[in-house]
């Protein structure tokens, strides 16, 4: 099986956004989804472009230009989709995150992290 590069946290967010948006993954929608996933962190549109370029360079995503549309001033959208290597890398990252979650839940209790917002661990007595 192909061995994928390890991913940074921001790359994981961008790949997850592309995965969930499916056919509708382009600059603006990816930015909105990543902002939602990274809440409450502020994410700039420029950071999305840098990461998409890097992921495309690594062969984890591929892109294509759509037809121009009038609401974009006659400009095309660049749609992104996951490539096999990107999907494998994201799966590996998700498995690792799940392991961390399981261990953290055992130590800090099952109820940890359920509430939205800042989650401070309850130290075991």
């Amino acid at each position, binding site marked *: 099986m192909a061995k994928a590069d390890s991913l940074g946290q921001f790359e994981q967010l961008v790949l997850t956004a592309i995965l969930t948006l499916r056919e509708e993954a382009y*600059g603006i929608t990816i930015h909105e989804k990543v902002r939602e996933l990274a809440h409450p962190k502020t994410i700039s549109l420029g950071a999305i472009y840098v990461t998409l370029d890097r992921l495309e360079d690594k062969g984890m995503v591929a892109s294509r*230009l759509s037809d121009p549309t009038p609401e974009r001033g006659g*400009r095309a*959208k*660049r749609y992104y989709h996951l490539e096999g290597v990107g999907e494998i890398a994201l799966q590996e990252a998700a498995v690792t995150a799940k392991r961390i979650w399981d261990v953290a839940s055992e130590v800090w209790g099952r109820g940890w992290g359920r509430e939205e917002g800042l989650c401070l661990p309850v130290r075991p007595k």
Partner: protein
Amino acid sequence: MFAGPPKIIESVVALLVPPAAREHVLGDLRERYAGTRSYLSDAVSAVPGAIAGRMLRITDWQVLAMEAGALYLSFLTAAWATLGAAYLCQHGDFLRLLLPVALALAALVVSDVYDSGARRTPVLAAGLGVGCAVALTEGKLALPAWILCSGGALGVVLISTVRMWFPPGGNRPRGEVL
């Protein structure tokens, strides 16, 4: 009819975005348009990322190191021939030679980022870098204009040779992730 930013502002933003990313970046900014102020704010947030993304994507760091070596060798040869080794050692000119090299390299990288597929002109980029260095001839880091000009000319020849073997940007073979 869809509202859009003032033409002049959109043209300035278009100039700043590298040609390879211009179509979709300008489209994204236009789609999010909700007034001139928000457009400018979006542009300020998006354009540096588009430039950095392109720069990281097309820059081959090994070739850039070779180009840096070629440029330094050019200026060193020019300085050596003009001033002699003893003078260079006494006045610390070995380090001062790094200034035109850094400026010429920066100009080369920027020219690659904004290259639109036309015939590349390393002469222009290296010339710009050397020009900037000449403009600094009044400063503490100044080098004689003759060294900058002859070193720059030799540098253009060497850079052109390096680029013939290792073409910049998308023409370079890229490593596979697998």
